């Protein structure tokens, strides 16, 4: 028998302790016999763990889950997975979405309105060329760059607010240099993730020029006031990223 919306809701209420004892018993009888409902319970458990990790539940719901669903070893592991996944998603989701979303939209647009898109693209290119030439032709103000060299927190153990390096950014660009915890061979590839106030600012793949550090330039527009943390991952020959423990914290004022 296919499950209805009522069954979706009732498993959630069951897991959050919102059913009375008679309803609980009735549901448990069904859980022992109905495979689909039992699967629904597993899916709802997983979703609740993810909502917990993402901070999307009330404090009462959180406490209930801590004391019930997460009390057993299996429950603890599901919470730990959800928390690791939440962290991963926050670090990786935005670039993936932008990339996929844009190209999907572009493909769809191109296949549906080829003539219109071509004409619009031609006009856009001409306008960009014209205004670009006008804007750039007067001698531009030279770009200024501030530099900041950071050491990995695993080597320094200094993540408390008082010891975080702070920059008053008045320049156009901030050149960030991250000292590698251990020297590596010149040209080794790294993935560089910069997060600010819980948001991913940019992910880029770069290589070490001196075997001791990684550098990347960020426009001042990307870096409003706030706390930032950069993380590095090594990229092996198969393209697999392995995160280097710790991070590089700094503050922009």
């Amino acid at each position, binding site marked *: 028998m296919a499950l209805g919306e009522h069954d979706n809701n009732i498993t959630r209420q069951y897991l959050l302790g919102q059913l009375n004892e008679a309803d609980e018993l009735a549901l*448990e009888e069904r859980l*022992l*016999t109905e495979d689909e409902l039992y699967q629904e319970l597993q899916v709802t458990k997983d979703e609740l763990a993810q909502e917990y990790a993402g901070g999307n539940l009330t404090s009462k719901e959180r406490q209930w889950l801590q*004391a019930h669903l997460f*009390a057993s070893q*299996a429950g603890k592991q599901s919470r730990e997975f959800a928390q*690791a996944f939440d*962290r*991963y998603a926050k670090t990786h989701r935005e670039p993936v979405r932008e990339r996929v979303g844009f190209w999907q939209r572009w493909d769809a647009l191109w296949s549906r309105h080829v003539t219109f898109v071509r004409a619009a693209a031609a006009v856009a290119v001409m306008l960009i060329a014209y205004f670009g030439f006008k804007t750039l032709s007067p001698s531009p103000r030279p770009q200024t760059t501030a530099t900041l060299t950071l050491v990995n927190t695993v080597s320094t153990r200094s993540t408390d607010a008082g010891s975080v390096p702070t920059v008053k950014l008045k320049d156009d660009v901030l050149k960030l240099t991250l000292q590698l915890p251990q020297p590596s061979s010149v040209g080794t590839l790294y993935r560089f993730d910069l997060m600010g106030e819980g948001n991913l600012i940019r992910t880029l793949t770069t290589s070490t020029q001196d075997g001791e550090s990684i550098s990347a330039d960020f426009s001042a527009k990307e870096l409003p006031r706030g706390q930032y943390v950069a993380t590095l991952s090594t990229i092996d020959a198969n393209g697999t990223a392995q995160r280097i*423990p710790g991070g590089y914290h700094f503050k922009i004022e």
Partner: protein
Amino acid sequence: MTRKPPSQEAFDKLLGWLDPDREQAGRKYQKIQIRLTDIFSCHGCTEPESLADETIDRVIEKIDWLIENYVGDPIRYFCGVARNVLREYWKRRRVPDEFPDEQKNEPDEENDRRFDCLDKCMAELLPRNRSMILDYYEDQGKAKIVHRKQLAENTGISLPALRLRVFHIRTQLAKCMQECVNQGSER
């Protein structure tokens, strides 16, 4: 309290009560054992497996009486016994006034190790599955619902099917992450 394990004869009678076909009975028994464990786990029992075993043992103790007198689905009887076991467990358990905030108690190194393992497991996923589960958890509230409908449409499946697919990918990932963490601890 330590319970005496049931005799082979009583256990065979239980299987016969569950289903006349021995293979079917074995499957039903396993299903009951696993699902009772899950039910106890949902109620916050720290050792749900032993409570499930205790429930089954209590049913086995009464098996002669049940075969003679009980009318109805055996599952219903299991549920009633499980509820009694649960009530006794609640009485025995000392409930803390406040539950600790587990996130503050866990060392960063363990969180980092899990994160690194998950990173590795995500890299092993098919790219389309990786992008699907990341995309699935985009947005909040109403926007999230609209976004998921759109994602299901783009993938060419219904929303419930997408939800199940995401669940299966996550189950695979959770298993991979746990194996990786365990391997790290053994070293």
